[in-house]
């Protein structure tokens, strides 16, 4: 099933020709209207006429989150403010938030791409979409909402939080599609269990989860606990919001990135050079239809790889693999690169372990230490010390085997690790304080 079959299945040569045309037009617009791009192109010794084919994109400089902060709030907008119909901002955990503006056409594009994403994930008109992404400055809630309406589905704008009420509404309203962060879906499952609600009795069929990295193992866990098909969606407010890329339900293997609107590249985050198909690196995106705030070679900080292999679903758009972390979340522990999601994958693979964990990185003398806090579920608990100690040792060994890093596993009481309605905080790095 497609929402826009013509564009979703456009043969690659036609798709690439369209990309080039749209790229050139975007470059002309930003060069003329955004002083930042005029200056950054000049500093790199290029102008829009230098881009004659898609590979020429590599000649252009990157745009970073810092560039957006420096242009706070409206410096990167490419249209006069009166053309902007919506303003969103991403959470500013470090300093000012990054601000994005949408023209009416941008909102239309976003709604279509989100509607395409819903269809790719197996949703359709007639579905009741339970949208538990937060509404507000965060793009998740409104992005999914407009896409659901464009699709013609019934959307419940429940937003995040008040989990008991969420569960009641899912039961009573017959929600068939759930959209929220993956960690919140597991939190809901826990709450439902405490309330004596069995997801098998609910109508939920599809879950579309994003806004934080998760793992294949977590997918299995969610699918089992919530009794639905769990799909990964990707997006970021700087580029648009949710719906930049989505897994198709046919393959559940990689997220199709809507290439008629975005050009993806994978780079080495250290050197900035482009990496070949299949290699893991940082995702860089150029928007080629956006009007409000077009971004050229935006460094997402998300780690993935790309594949142009044809997909069984019939879409011709490239697929990126599930995000394996953030280039700036990457922990370097005694010289080993560790992404929290890798540890999560190990934990969920151990039967009975809850996917709630906390990583504590510290430095003793000159040596980095990693402590992995794991909750003891009823399942795992034993009246014998040796059984619990064997469990700790197993966690330590499996992490060592998989990641090559030595850690100490610490068992903690259930529900002591912070749950979150939004993005879960998984790492405490005490080394910064030393």
């Amino acid at each position, binding site marked *: 099933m497609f929402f826009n079959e013509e564009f979703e299945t456009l043969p690659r040569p036609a798709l690439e020709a369209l990309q080039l045309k749209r790229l050139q037009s975007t470059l002309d617009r930003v060069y003329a209207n955004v002083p930042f791009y005029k200056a950054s192109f000049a500093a790199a010794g290029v102008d829009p006429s230098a881009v004659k084919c898609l590979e020429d994109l590599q000649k252009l400089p990157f745009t970073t989150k810092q560039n957006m902060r420096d242009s706070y709030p409206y410096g990167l907008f490419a249209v006069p403010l009166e053309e902007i119909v919506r303003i969103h901002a991403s959470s500013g955990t470090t300093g000012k938030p990054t601000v994005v503006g949408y023209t009416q056409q941008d909102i239309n594009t976003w709604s279509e791409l989100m509607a395409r994403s819903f269809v790719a994930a197996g949703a359709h008109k007639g579905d009741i979409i339970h949208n538990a992404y937060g509404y507000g400055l965060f793009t998740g809630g409104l992005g999914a909402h407009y896409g659901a309406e464009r699709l013609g589905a019934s959307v419940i704008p429940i937003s995040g939080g008040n989990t008991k009420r969420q569960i009641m509404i899912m039961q009573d309203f017959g929600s068939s599609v759930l959209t929220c962060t993956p960690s919140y879906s597991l939190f809901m499952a826990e709450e439902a269990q405490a309330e004596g609600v069995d997801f098998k009795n609910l109508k939920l069929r599809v879950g579309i989860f994003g806004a934080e990295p998760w793992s294949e193992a977590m997918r299995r866990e969610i699918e089992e606990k919530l009794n639905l098909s769990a799909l990964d969606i990707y997006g970021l407010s700087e580029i648009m919001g949710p719906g930049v890329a989505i897994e198709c339900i046919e393959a559940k293997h990689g997220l199709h990135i809507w290439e008629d609107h975005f050009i993806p590249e994978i780079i080495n985050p250290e050197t900035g050079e482009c990496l070949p198909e299949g290699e893991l690196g940082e995702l860089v995106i150029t928007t080629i239809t956006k009007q409000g705030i077009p971004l050229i070679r935006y460094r997402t900080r998300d780690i993935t790889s790309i594949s142009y292999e044809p997909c069984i679903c019939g879409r011709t758009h490239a697929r990126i693999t599930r995000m394996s972390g953030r280039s700036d979340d990457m922990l370097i522990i005694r010289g080993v690169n560790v992404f929290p999601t890798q540890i999560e994958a190990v934990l969920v693979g151990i039967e009975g372990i809850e996917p709630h964990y906390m990583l504590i990185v510290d430095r003793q003398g000159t040596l980095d230490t990693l402590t992995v806090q794991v909750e*003891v*579920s*009823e399942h795992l*608990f*034993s*009246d*014998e*010390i040796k059984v*619990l*100690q064997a469990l*700790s040792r197993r966690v330590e060994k499996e992490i060592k085997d998989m990641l090559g890093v030595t850690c100490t596993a*610490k*068992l*903690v*009481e*259930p*529900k*002591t690790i912070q749950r979150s309605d939004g993005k879960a905080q998984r790492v405490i790095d005490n080394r910064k304080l030393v």
Partner: protein
Amino acid sequence: MKVEQISIFIENKSGRLAEITRILGETGINIRALSLADTSDFGILRLIVNDCAKASTVLKESGFTVNMTEVVAVEVPDRPGGLSAILQTLDREAINVEYMYAFVERCGGNAVIIFRFDETEKAISSLKANSFNVLEGSRLYNL
């Protein structure tokens, strides 16, 4: 012939034991025997109480991880060599003691020891065959 014991996971941080005993006290549950096993990171509190099911429910409601195990209560003559005789019997049958602790009250003139064996059924029949007195749970909870 078996006795129900509840075990509670306790993280090694202050106030946890106080919290458990407060909850049990407020629910009117009487602790009949206890043992605390500890490591540097966590502990396991094992309790024999007068109402196991109720204790388990209230502790779970308060967010504790609880499980129930069957243990064996044996009367031990209160004289030198009393415990030794029991352990020698078990040793001959190659039954292992995972842990053991003493019950607070006496039963008649005898002490009572709570045992957790690797093979509970085998241990019970072996003890009875050797004329040791294995106590019923119902009797023990109300000693």
